[in-house]
Structure formats: structure tokens, C-alpha cells
């Protein structure tokens, strides 16, 4: 919403400075977005009197002028043909920024003659393209006076943001009312609304035809006919204001409708009466498929949920949104018919949205227009039409009835204090409400406020608290420190939240970078990761590559790895802790810690060569997160059934029985190819919510540590087993041989090839024996060794390698 200061002062009697007004606007909730003061840009330009203009001694086309600036006489070399003795022009001293050229004016010597300033053309002033000569100002323009003031450009333009609830401030008068309530001046009386005496009976009548119960689409419409008009340009003052707020003047009739829209928040429309048929205009629902050529030059097809304005020949307006081109007023219009209507905000909004028309009328109707303006709007418009176009006005044609809008809302005397935090006398509260147009009375310790017709947004006590507070100013609310119920802060994170945090810290601690990627992704890529059910396809995706909710975090991380490789960074570790979806229910949203490593384990280095990343990097990452999140790490089993986007032979699942906690492995080369990512890539997905909750019993106490006083003994064994026997079952077998004594079994070598036979492999394990009660004898060790060999033989078919 834009207006100028002088426009505001049409409605507001005030001598408050601009800053005070703009501060008050923002404090009222009418946030000032911009103040543009054209006078400031033009401050250096003043009225100059050309005392003498004589030909330049060394140049035919130049003149040497002596300019009286009001404070001194200055020599200026000027090339304009109209520079002459005795004229008044626009003078700019050296150092001035010239808006039309974008240059700073410098002192200079032009062909031997000093020039200390400039007489400006309209183009140089940035006012128009006119550059035939310098601007000539009227003879009575006071020398030295600011140029902006002379041409009426000294009117600051104020732009404010209007929240959707404040339709009443979409006109300058509403803004003035708020300011007056806040103590910035006095609201002037609304004289423009007084009835205009009719000189004839309207030749066109309004009708409303709605199905029973749907009359609210247009509760009331008022109009009148004008005749004997001359639809020339609108007056200068109106044009200047419209231009200042960015509207192009068109003709008096059109400009008047725009002016009233912005001045009073009352959208109007005028039809060329000569182009209407049948002496009546009807408000009705459109028939599906009816079309209209609108004022924006485009044709629109209406549906039966849209209100339209029609005569016998067809549709001439989309109610509350835009008028029709065919019946619009032109320079030839001598007779017109005025539309001052009320429309259902919701229907108007829906119509505008469907047709994709943004208009000043729609903007106001969907935020609701003062119902009473249906009547006074017809008078305001009539007065302006008669003033600007001459002619005469008919009586009013009215269809429908003014809806009842007044409501009584109660405000308890202490409510501004108990809800708003400000202790205010009832009298002051009432004063504010009255200034905003409410009528108030007191009843049983409460203010009973009756809402004005232009405030449909005020419905509850809390609304009145807001009105009182915002006029009083939120600065007046004393800040009260928030007290905590307990002396010390309590634990506020859930187990799940802490685990997400643990996962982040562990993975970042392992050298990976945390990424945050879109929750959505491309459908074809999602198909590579198990696909997405129909319910997770966005109806209105923002782009073709963000169409479905991601079933896994890996594809977005893979794409990111690809982008980084394209930028020259092929080796990296990325992870993300975030959602992935199985369905559209809250339970179908998993919080997944996913990550991947690509390329090499590190940069090339003089001391040790990096290696390609592999499944065991991903396995280590996943196990580290599981351990940090409290999974029983010793019980986690590894199975070979990771889903299809992993390398079938180099991937696995980490599980507790049937409960899969994580997948890890190298990413399937086919997936990498489809996504255009160079391998190798090893990734993991950890389902944090599937990690068992720690037992509540026992609290934070840990089991007592009983370090053995006896030295552990290490023994190595190499077994030959069938190639497909998992290393883990061999370790388990070895450990099972003497559980109380064997504290650790770790695989330190795997070999297949010459010497172990076809289809076989050799697995070497280091076994640690930890006695608790005595030092082991050779005999003891021999006994355990034999048990280990027997257990491995029995459980895996492995034999001690000879």
C-alpha cells in the first residue's frame, strides 16, 4: 500500500514530521517498507535566474551564462538553444549528482570559459527523455527555491505492508484513522460521503440473481448513471498522486475508480453506459464456460462458482476481480454506469486464484471492504465524476441490502493487563477504541465495544486487547523475565533426539561432513532405491527433479558426492541425519543416519598411499554410531541381505535377530552408473529408532570392573575352511571353546590361493586367553588350544593349517 504525505494529510490534520509519522505507522503494525522522498534526490537543484546569456567566444553552439542562484552569481557554459537572458531554469552547482546521466557534475573550463554548474534539461533531471533544451520555469518561481517544490515533487511516497486482517487500511483514510488514534493528528471529517443531488432517474438498474442461500456472493450493489460527460485526462493533482504510487493515469473516469480504491479502500467500476444492453446489469453466477475479454486484454473462461456482472448480451465483469474490456470507458464515453458492490471475500479470492488475476480490486475484496462503502462510495464517486468530467448524475439504483456487521465484543477491565501485560486505565482503553471507530460503554467492570463496519477482523476479546495494545505501542509492555519452575534445568531431550545428536558427533568425529539435503527427490532416482508409493508423490512439486518424498537419504548424498566430484573433490565422506519415508503416516517417517564415503580413503601422501574406500569403511561407521547410541555392540549380527542398491557381494545388514538396525556396503555399480557417480562408494543407513531402548533398571551404575592380576596369553591359529564360511562363525566357534578363559578372538589374516586348495581359504585368528585365578601353565594352554581346534572343526569344518 502506497500513498504520499500530502495525500495522507487530506484525511489527517497533523504537523508531525515525516519520521514521527513513519515510526508511528510501524508501531501500529502498518510496517513501513520504504519512504521515498523525491525532494531529497533533487535537493541540490534550485531555481536559477539567467542574468545574462551571451555567445561563447570560441564556440558557435555554446552560450556563457551568468546565473543568479539566489546566493551568488555563477558563470555556466550552456549548450541549450533556449538559454537566454532573463529566463529562469533549473540550476545545479558543481558537485551535484545528475540523475539523468548518472554522473557527478565537475567544475571545468569549456573552450577557455569557466563553467561552475549546469542548467538542466528534463532528461538530465531524469524526468523525461526531453533534451531539446533546458527546463524553463515560470517567471514567478522564486530564485534559489528548491526545484522539487516548484514542480510538486516534494511529496514523500510512503509504502507500508498491510497484514491480511487489515483490509480497512488498504485506503489512505484507514491509515489516517490509525495514526489519529495513536496521537498523530486528528482525523478530518468525511465530507465526501454526503449525498449528491440526482438530476435524473438512472437509465440502468442493478439486479441480483442468485440461487436461494447464495445471495451472500453479492449482498448489495449500488450504482447510478452519469450523462453529458467529457472523459478527458484527470486533474493534475490526481495524476500526480497516481503516478507517485506507480499507477498510470488513463482517463478521468478510470483514474477516479483507481483513486477512490486507494484513497478510501473502495474499489469501483464504471461501464460505458452506451455499450450496455437492456437497461439493467445483473449480478449472478457465471454459466460454466462463459467467457469475458477483461480489461487486461486477456480472455477468461468462467465457471459456475464465479460471480459475474452481465447484461442481456453477455458478461461484462468478473465480480470483484476485473471489469470487461468491451464495456470499458474510453475517451469517447459520455454516459457511464457506476458499480459499487459488496462481494463475498472467499469467493472473490477463489475466483482470482483460479483465473490467476491479481488486481487492486481483488486484493481489497478478498480482505473485505467496508459494507457501508456501498452507499457512500456512490456519492464519493459521483462528486469526483461531476468535478472532473462535468455532466450530471442520476439517482441511485440499489439491489440487495447492507449486511449487518456491528458486533458487541466485551473487554474485561483487567484483560489488557492479564493478557497484554500492560496496566492501563479503562478510560484510556476506551479512548483508543473510540478513536479507532468503535463505540463503547461500560458494563459490570468490562468495556462493551461495538465494532465499526470496517473492522470485520475484530471478533474476540483478544482482538480488542490487540487493538488497545498496538495503539498504545508494544514498547509500553514491560518485559518480564520468564521464571523456570525448577532451580536447575531439567533434561529436555528425548532418547531419540540425543541419539540423533550422538550420531552426528560420532560421524563428524570420524572425519565426515554433515550435509542437509532436500527431503524430496526425483522419482526415477527414487525408483533405484526401492521406489515410492503413490501417496508420497507431490501434487505440486517445485521442479521436475524434486517430485517425491525420499525413500532413502543415500540418493541425495550420492548426487551431492557427484557434484563435489565434478568440482574436483572426488574423495569425501558425507552424512545426513534426517527423515526418509515409507508412507504418509507419522509412523512411516524414519529418522535415518545415512552416510557415504567416495573415492580414496584420503589424499595421496608421501608416507603412505591411500586406498579405495570399501564396505568395511561403511561397516565401521555404522558400528560406531550404533555403539554410541547404546546398541548392544557385542550382540549385533551381520547378515548378507542388504537391499538392492548395495553391491550384492559387498554389503550386509547389522541386526539383532529379526530387527535390522542398519545396512552397509558398497553401492551397487548399476546405481552409481544410473546416477552418474564414479565409484567406489561405500554407504550406510542406520535406523536410529530401531536401536533398543536401554533398560530403565540399574540407573547409571556400571558393572564393577575386575581386572585380572594374571597376564593374558596370546596364541595364533590358522584354519583352512570352505571359502563361503563367514569369518564371524569361525571366530564365534573359537570363542565358544572355553568362554571363561577366551577374552578375545580377532581375525588378522585371510588368504586364498596356492597352498590352501580350491574353494578353500585360510583364516588366521589371534586368541587372547585371560586367566582370572592363576597363571596359565603350558599344559593349560595346550588344553585350550585343542578345544579351540576341536570347536572350529566341529562348527565350521575348518582344520588347523599345516
Amino acid at each position, binding site marked *: 500500500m502506497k500513498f504520499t504525505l500530502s495525500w495522507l494529510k487530506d484525511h489527517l490534520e497533523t504537523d508531525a514530521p515525516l519520521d514521527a509519522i513513519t515510526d508511528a505507522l510501524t508501531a501500529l503494525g502498518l510496517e513501513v517498507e520504504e519512504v521515498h522522498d523525491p525532494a531529497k534526490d533533487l535537493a541540490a537543484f534550485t531555481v536559477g535566474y539567467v542574468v545574462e546569456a551571451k555567445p561563447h567566444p570560441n564556440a558557435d553552439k555554446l552560450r556563457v551564462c551568468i546565473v543568479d542562484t539566489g546566493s551568488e552569481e555563477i558563470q555556466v557554459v550552456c549548450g541549450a538553444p533556449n538559454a537566454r537572458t532573463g529566463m529562469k531554469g533549473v540550476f545545479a552547482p558543481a558537485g551535484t549528482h545528475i540523475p539523468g546521466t548518472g554522473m557527478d557534475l565537475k567544475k571545468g573550463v569549456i573552450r577557455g570559459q569557466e563553467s561552475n554548474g549546469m542548467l538542466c534539461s528534463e532528461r538530465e533531471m531524469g524526468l523525461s527523455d526531453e533534451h531539446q533544451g533546458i527546463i524553463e520555469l515560470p517567471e514567478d518561481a522564486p530564485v534559489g527555491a528548491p526545484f522539487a517544490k516548484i514542480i510538486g515533487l516534494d511529496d514523500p511516497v510512503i509504502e507500508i505492508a498491510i497484514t491480511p486482517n487489515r483490509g480497512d487500511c488498504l485506503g489512505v483514510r484507514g491509515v489516517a484513522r490509525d495514526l489519529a488514534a495513536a496521537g498523530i493528528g486528528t482525523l478530518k471529517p468525511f465530507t465526501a460521503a454526503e449525498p449528491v443531488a440526482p438530476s435524473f432517474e438512472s437509465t440502468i438498474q442493478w439486479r441480483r440473481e442468485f440461487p436461494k442461500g447464495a445471495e451472500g456472493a453479492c449482498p448489495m450493489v449500488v450504482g447510478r448513471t452519469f450523462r453529458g460527460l467529457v472523459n478527458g485526462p484527470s486533474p493534475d493533482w490526481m495524476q500526480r498522486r497516481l503516478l507517485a504510487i506507480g499507477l498510470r493515469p488513463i482517463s478521468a473516469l478510470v483514474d477516479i475508480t483507481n483513486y477512490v480504491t486507494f484513497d478510501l479502500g473502495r474499489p469501483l467500476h464504471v461501464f460505458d453506459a452506451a455499450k450496455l444492453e437492456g437497461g439493467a446489469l445483473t449480478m449472478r453466477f457465471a454459466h460454466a464456460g462463459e467467457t469475458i475479454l477483461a480489461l487486461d486484454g486477456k480472455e477468461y473462461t468462467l465457471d459456475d462458482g464465479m460471480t459475474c456482472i452481465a447484461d442481456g448480451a453477455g458478461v461484462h465483469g468478473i465480480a470483484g476481480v476485473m471489469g470487461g474490456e468491451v464495456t470499458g470507458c474510453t475517451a469517447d464515453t459520455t454516459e457511464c454506469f457506476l458499480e459499487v458492490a459488496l462481494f463475498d471475500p472467499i469467493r472473490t479470492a477463489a475466483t482470482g486464484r483460479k483465473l490467476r488475476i491479481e488486481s487492486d480490486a481483488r486484493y481489497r475484496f478478498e480482505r473485505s471492504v467496508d459494507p457501508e462503502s456501498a452507499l457512500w462510495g456512490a456519492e464519493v464517486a459521483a462528486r469526483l465524476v461531476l468535478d472532473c468530467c462535468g455532466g450530471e448524475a442520476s439517482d441511485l439504483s440499489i439491489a440487495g441490502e447492507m449486511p449487518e456487521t456491528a458486533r458487541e465484543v466485551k473487554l474485561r477491565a483487567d484483560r489488557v493487563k492479564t493478557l497484554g501485560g500492560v496496566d492501563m486505565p479503562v478510560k484510556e482503553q476506551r479512548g483508543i477504541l473510540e478513536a479507532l471507530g468503535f463505540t463503547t460503554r461500560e458494563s459490570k467492570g468490562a468495556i462493551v465495544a461495538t465494532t465499526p463496519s470496517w473492522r470485520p477482523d475484530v471478533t474476540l476479546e483478544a482482538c480488542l486487547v490487540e487493538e488497545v495494545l498496538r495503539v498504545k505501542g508494544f514498547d509500553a*509492555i514491560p518485559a518480564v523475565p520468564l521464571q523456570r519452575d525448577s532451580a536447575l534445568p531439567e533434561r529436555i531431550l528425548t532418547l531419540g533426539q540425543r541419539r540423533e545428536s550422538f550420531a552426528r558427533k560420532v560421524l563428524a568425529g570420524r572425519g565426515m561432513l554433515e550435509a542437509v539435503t532436500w527431503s524430496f527427490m526425483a522419482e526415477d532416482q527414487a525408483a533405484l532405491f526401492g521406489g515410492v508409493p503413490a501417496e508420497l508423490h507431490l501434487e505440486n512439486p517445485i521442479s521436475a527433479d524434486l517430485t517425491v518424498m525420499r525413500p532413502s537419504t543415500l540418493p541425495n548424498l550420492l548426487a551431492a558426492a557427484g557434484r563435489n566430484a565434478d568440482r574436483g573433490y572426488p574423495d569425501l565422506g558425507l552424512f545426513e541425519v534426517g527423515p526418509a519415508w515409507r508412507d504418509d503416516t507419522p509412523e512411516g517417517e524414519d529418522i535415518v543416519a545415512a552416510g557415504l564415503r567416495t573415492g580414496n580413503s584420503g589424499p595421496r601422501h608421501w608416507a603412505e598411499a591411500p586406498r579405495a574406500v570399501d564396505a568395511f569403511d561403511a561397516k565401521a561407521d555404522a558400528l560406531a554410531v550404533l555403539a554410541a547410541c547404546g546398541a548392544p555392540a557385542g550382540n549385533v549380527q551381520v547378515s548378507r541381505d542388504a537391499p538392492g542398491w548395495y553391491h550384492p557381494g559387498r554389503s550386509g545388514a547389522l541386526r539383532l535377530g529379526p530387527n535390522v538396525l542398519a545396512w552397509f556396503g558398497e553401492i551397487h555399480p548399476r546405481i552409481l552408473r544410473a546416477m552418474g557417480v564414479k565409484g567406489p562408494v561405500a554407504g550406510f543407513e542406520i535406523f536410529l529408532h530401531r536401536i533398543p531402548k536401554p533398560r530403565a533398571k540399574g540407573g547409571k551404575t556400571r558393572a564393577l570392573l575386575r581386572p585380572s592380576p594374571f597376564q593374558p596369553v596370546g596364541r595364533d591359529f590358522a584354519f583352512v575352511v570352505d571359502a563361503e564360511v563367514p569369518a564371524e562363525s569361525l571366530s564365534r566357534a573359537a570363542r565358544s571353546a572355553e568362554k571363561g578363559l577366551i577374552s578375545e578372538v580377532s581375525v588378522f589374516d585371510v588368504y586364498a590361493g596356492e597352498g590352501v586348495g580350491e574353494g578353500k581359504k585360510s583364516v588366521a585368528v589371534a586368541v587372547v586367553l585371560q586367566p582370572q585365578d592363576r597363571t596359565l601353565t603350558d599344559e593349560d594352554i595346550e588344553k585350550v588350544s585343542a578345544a579351540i581346534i576341536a570347536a572350529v572343526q566341529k562348527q565350521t569344518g575348518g582344520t588347523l593349517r599345516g
Partner: protein
Amino acid sequence: MDDLNALRDELLAAIESADSTAALETLRVSALGRKGTVTGLLKGLGQVDPEQRRARGQAVNALKEAASAAIDAKMAALADSALESRLAAESVDVTLPARPLPEGRLHPISQTLDEIVAIFGEMGYSVAEGPDIEDDFHNFTALNIPPEHPARQMFDTFYLPERPDGSRMVLRTHTSPVQIRAMQAISGGKANGLPLRIIAPGRTYRCDSDMTHTPMFHQVEGLIVDRTTHMGHLKGCLIEFVRAYFELPDVPVRFRPSYFPFTEPSAELDIGCDRSGGELKIGAGDDWLEILGCGMVHPNVLAACGIDPAEYQGFAFGMGIERIAMLKYGIPDLRTFFDADLRWLKHYGFVPLEVPTLFRGLTP
């Protein structure tokens, strides 16, 4: 006794001039070994005149000890010099780079969130959550935005397909539906869940993309419901938050009336900043920067959650996490948050050393 002196000089000179441990060993054997010269002298003491035997014995023993000590000393000297020359030979170029260990980083969104939780945690808020895919009731209707409310247009909503019953799920346009879930959880079960004090961080979605908007971003929501909390508390709470978060104890703060369907009265909070010189600086200055929206919970919202608005009241606020992260850490471009550019993550990311707390300091 002259023969002993001569032998001593000869032996000590030989020891001194020995240039290896092997040569010393040979000397030791030839002098002190079983058939060594000194050993021979000791053995020959029996033939010496008994009167001189004692004195000679002492002299020979002294010689033996002197030779032995000289050999040990020389041995140590040789070992020292051998070590020194080995160390000299095995020196390395210590200016070579150390073995690389990749350094991980946390995303600025995680860090910011941790900081926010640290501050509100001290104020007695707990952290609540809700799903990203919401139903219309939680995202709109319960928040006092009925189906045809013009305010629905304030949100560029992502929709999921219509279900057989005509309803459509949406990607939550704000974290406010978590307010509703938190209040429902209380009102449905034990009424003594009030007072309620939560923050709800999370992903939010709007169908909008340009220089300053991304289709996904993060918000944190705050909500207090009890019998007495009023706008003064709202101001107190948020002023403290802003000053703690930006770690600027005197940053100017301004509350401005605004409009949200789910609060009444509604306000926006601006902080002081300085834009002169083309660079945005938080703190003193003559400009203002909007950072969050807030207000007293609308009675219709309380009622929609089964909480009696005649008895209970409270405030709510919501802010964009990326926005306040950008302001605090000087990150210029919102879109870069979601690009996973390694250079950006390393530069703007945070070392995962500790969880921010107010008493240790927020941003490392």
C-alpha cells in the same frame, strides 16, 4: 714395579686408541682374560718374594681395575658415538606434511539448533517433535486457518495426492502443527500436563524457490500454555533469547504488531542492525531486521486442542533457523545450505567438540 707402570701406560694407551667395541673386547681378553697379561701377573704373584708380594699384589690389582674401568668408559663412549652417528644417519625432513586425518564438521543448522536448545532449555522448555507430513487439521484448521481462510494463501503449500475420503496430506508449512500435537497430547490425557513449555524444531516446506527462499527450510517453534503468561513474559523471554543467541548483551530489540491467524495479539520481533557500507552488522545501528513472529496463542487454537481458553493462555513464537544462522555466522546465501558443497561444509561447518551450553559458551 716399573714393569707394571710400563704395562699400565701401554694398556691405557691401547684402550684409548681402540676404535670399535670389537677392538676393545680383544684388548679386554688380552689383558684381563684368562690368559691375559694382567691375569698372568696375578697368577705369577705366588713366585714373588713374600716380602714384596703384598705390595706387588696391590699394584697388580690396581692395574686390573684401572684397565677394566678404562675399557668400560671407552665402551660407553663408543656406544654414545655410535648412537649419535646412527641418529645423524636416520634424520628425516620434519617439514614434510604429517599423515592426514580427515576432519569432520557439523552442519551450521545442527549447531544453530543445539544453541537454540541450550538457551530455551535453560528457560525450562523441552523439545517436542512432529511429522513432516501433516494433515490439514494440524497444519491449518486447528491453527485457526479454516479451509477458505485467505491466510492459507500466505503459505505456498506442497500437497500430497488426494485420498479416497477427499482429504489431502501436506508437507507442513511451519512447525506450528507441533504446538497442536503437544496441546492435544495434554488435553486428551492428563490435564495436569499444563503448564506446557515446548520448543519444536524441524524441517518445513513451502513451494517457493528464489534467491531468499528454498522449498525446504527449518523452523523452531516455541509454545507456553498456562494460566498467567502474558505478553510481558513473551517480550522477556524473546529478548533474553535474542541477546543470548547472538551473544550481544545489548542488541536492540523491537516488537511490532503484526498478524498471524494463530496468535492474537501478534507481533514480529526486529533486532537492531547496521546496513551502512553495504554490509549487514547485527547490533547497534539505525536499521531493523525482522527475525521472528510471535504472539499470544489465539483462543480458537486452544479450543481446537481441547484446552479451555477461558482458563488457559500462553504465547507462541516461530523463527527460521537458517535465517538466524546466516545472521550470526555471516553466511550470505540461503541456497548454499542444501548444496552439500564440501568447500562450504568445511568452511561454515563446526568442529564436533562439544554441545553448546550457556555456561561454557555457545559458538566455539
